[in-house]
């Protein structure tokens, strides 16, 4: 029990730094078990600094920086024990264009490493352009959802 958790912790910690530095194009990140000698009772802390910035409480990070930091941990866990599917609902909402691009590049890498099928809900034109296919949902009859396959070029009209 405890040993498996410590082993998982060390794998996730390595991946955490790898993913973080990809999403932030630099910087530093590590995990720490705190508050208890017993890993089953401990807390998990994220100690990170974006490129050029000093280590500070993660709460002081910006909205976009917090989203990328959280995604780094989620993908680190994911790479340690991949799921067959991964559904992400508007996780790119707080990101600027440069970070959306790095996020999409990471998704493309993850698809190659794991055989996971990714479903990405988004309003971001940049993210849509990196998808292998798009499904659109509309409501031709108000209040009733309809699913349609979308031509990548037609995507913009659908979102507006």
């Amino acid at each position, binding site marked *: 029990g405890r040993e498996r958790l410590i*082993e*998982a*912790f060390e*794998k*996730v910690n390595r991946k955490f730094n790898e993913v973080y530095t990809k999403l932030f194009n630099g910087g530093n990140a590590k995990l720490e*078990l705190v*508050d208890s000698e017993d*890993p089953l009772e*401990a*807390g*998990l802390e*994220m100690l990170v600094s974006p490129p050029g910035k000093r280590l500070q409480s993660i*709460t002081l*990070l910006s909205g976009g920086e*917090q*989203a990328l*930091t*959280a995604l780094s*941990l*989620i993908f*680190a*866990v*994911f790479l340690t*024990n*991949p*799921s*067959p*599917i*991964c*559904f992400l*609902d*508007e*996780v790119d909402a707080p990101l600027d264009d440069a970070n959306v691009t790095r996020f999409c590049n990471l998704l493309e890498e993850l*698809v190659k490493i794991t055989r*996971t*099928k990714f479903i*990405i*809900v*988004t309003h971001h034109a940049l*993210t*849509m352009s*990196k998808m*292998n*296919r*798009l*499904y*659109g*949902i509309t*409501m031709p*009859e*108000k*209040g*009733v*959802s309809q*699913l349609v396959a*979308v031509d990548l070029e037609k*995507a913009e009209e*659908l*979102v*507006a």
Partner: protein
Amino acid sequence: MEFKKIQLTGFKSFVEKTTFLIEHGLTGIVGPNGCGKSNIVESLRWCMGETSAKSMRGSGMEDVIFSGTANKPSKNIAEVIISLGNIEKDGPIQFRDIEKIDVKRRIEKDKGSKYFINEKEVRARDAQTFFADLSTGAHSPSIIGQGRIGTLVTAKPSDRRAILEEAA
């Protein structure tokens, strides 16, 4: 074992049976506000055995049943089926030789939820265990609902440690 598709009938804004294919690589879901994108993500978690109505934005589990529009009457039943293919015969032990597995959850007004695996009724716990054995599930970090990404940052360190258990 791989996920093939999700079928929704009467689930929130999906009135008539809708089939959503789960395909290789990156699939985007797009559309205007309120058209039903998050409803699809929730239907997956719901069928996997989500027990909290609040995490599905409702006050009671019956809130997932299509409640009608200005022009359409409400329904009494909501049903979601997750279909998996098992060509490689590598699923959980009791399903190892079965090539196709359908996990269904169905809720009826005033009668609660029922779960079925290949039409045989099972307990909620069996559905949850089935997906846990596949390293996924309603609370897996691989399913991130809208607005949920910030919670990892604001979480108490002891709650955050729970995510490690998904990696173990």
